[in-house]
């Protein structure tokens, strides 16, 4: 499939939004550069998981992981990690899918900007899914194991977001090791929990985020992304014990 790339200037652009709704973008040369990129296949997948029940969100994520893993991450990163590629694809080829699945776009330009042409960073759902798919597909071979790790990402979205938000730990091996450790120690619930009675830490602090924060502080004297799982596990537990009542931790975590 050939995709024409959009020219800058389509964001915060009321006319562009109207033309999208009226299906007039593709026929207007003004919106495009001369660049055209080609990908073998560009199937539909859920692009926004900010709405619906928890179950609906999970299903949407799973579907997105699957499609992105099989059809998009085989392209060069020059495409699948570029904002302009995704925005051009969505606007020029996915209009019908978007209007059908995210009808709120029809009535609210803010929603259009938030769902369709959102900045391509860790808060963008496609970005989240692309990195998870790359990391898991590259490091995990067994198909059942892959499913398990996608599931772990979904069960630990808060810490996943935190890991991909900060450049230092945005790394395939590190993500997979941290998920492995959370799974083995069964500390998913603790990691998600808000830290109470520590007003000094800020409003929405969670144990998992503080663990990553502590690993960050120790780096590079301890190069945690390169540690083996067992050594990293000790580092995680040590960091967690700085915040979590140690007696309580020992009773919950079999080490």
């Amino acid at each position, binding site marked *: 499939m050939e995709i024409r790339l959009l020219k800058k200037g389509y964001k915060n652009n009321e006319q562009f939004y109207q033309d999208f709704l009226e299906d007039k973008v593709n026929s207007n040369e003004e919106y495009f550069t001369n660049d055209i990129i080609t990908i073998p296949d560009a199937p539909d997948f859920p692009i926004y998981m900010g709405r619906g029940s928890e179950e609906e969100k999970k299903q949407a994520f799973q579907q997105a992981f699957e499609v992105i893993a099989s059809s998009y991450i085989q392209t060069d990163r020059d495409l699948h*990690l570029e904002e302009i590629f995704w925005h051009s694809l969505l606007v020029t080829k996915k209009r019908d899918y978007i209007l059908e699945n995210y009808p709120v776009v029809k009535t609210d330009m803010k929603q259009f900007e938030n769902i369709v042409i959102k900045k391509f960073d860790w808060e963008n759902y496609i970005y989240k899914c692309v990195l998870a798919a790359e990391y898991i597909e590259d490091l995990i071979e067994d198909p059942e194991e892959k499913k398990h790790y996608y599931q772990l990402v979904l069960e630990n979205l808060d810490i996943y977001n935190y890991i991909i938000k900060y450049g230092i730990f945005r790394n395939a091996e590190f993500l997979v090791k941290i998920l492995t450790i959370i799974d083995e120690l069964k500390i998913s619930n603790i990691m998600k929990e808000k830290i109470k009675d520590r007003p000094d830490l800020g409003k929405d602090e969670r144990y998992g985020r503080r663990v990553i924060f502590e690993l960050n502080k120790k780096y*590079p004297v301890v190069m945690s992304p390169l540690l083996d799982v067992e050594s990293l596990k000790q580092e995680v537990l040590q960091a967690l014990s700085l915040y979590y009542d140690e007696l309580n931790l020992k009773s919950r975590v079999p080490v």
Partner: protein
Amino acid sequence: MIYKKDANFPYPVLTNTSTSYEEPSFLLDVSLEENTNDYRFLINYEVSSPFIKKLIATGDAQAILIIQSKDNKFYKLDPNQTAIEVPKKRVSLNKRTSIQLHIQSNREIHFGENQDLTSFYDAFKSEIIVPNNALLGYSNIVVFEGSIQNPLVLFEKKLDEQLTSDIRIELGVETIIIHYRKEDYQFTGVRSSQAFNNPYIYAGLRTALQRFIHEYSEQGEEYVDLTQITQPENLLDFKLYQLMTKKMVQEVSVDNIDEVISLISDKIIEKYAGAVKELIHNGD
């Protein structure tokens, strides 16, 4: 993570500005080759300290290459390893990319035997014990600013209504010139006009490479070993030479000419086929 500033460590770390080592230097040089699917990073580094060198040679420490672009990638290097290959589907260099080499301990390291430290450490270096997985040194940062050579700069398009054929390929001083008799033949104004011109590009590359083989092959041979010839003085040939060596082509011959074109031309036929399919599909 890449170190841009001097960081404080509780033990001596070898860097280009270290105050713990006598005459410290840890120089990294990285050059880049690419083909259709991969980047190959050629790594050359020089560590001033014999102590650190020995740790690397014995495996007690390890060099780790860090490539930071969209995310961080770590590559553990064997003691004599000088290159790594990374598929383009997993690294993109179109934005600024930083590369640094770290030396990391593979076991507890005792600094008592380190003769390369400044005399400041003489009295107590035997007490310095650095744990496993710790940073022992980091290099300068090599930066790629992005945007790799595009084979299309090799070409010029010209319109010549007096032409006695529909198109004509001319090998110019430093470009391959494609003359068209009618503007229509360039598909200007048609969507994907660039892709539709790819068969002409293909023909142009073939013509230029045939001359290249003729010019630089040994008498009576029909191939050129690119590792054996000196850089061509002819500007067009020099561009082709650079393009081929960058894409890891070692030999170009009458027999592999089409293969070479596909290596140096960034999927032109695939793009052409895609454009035609799209056109048929849309029926316009």
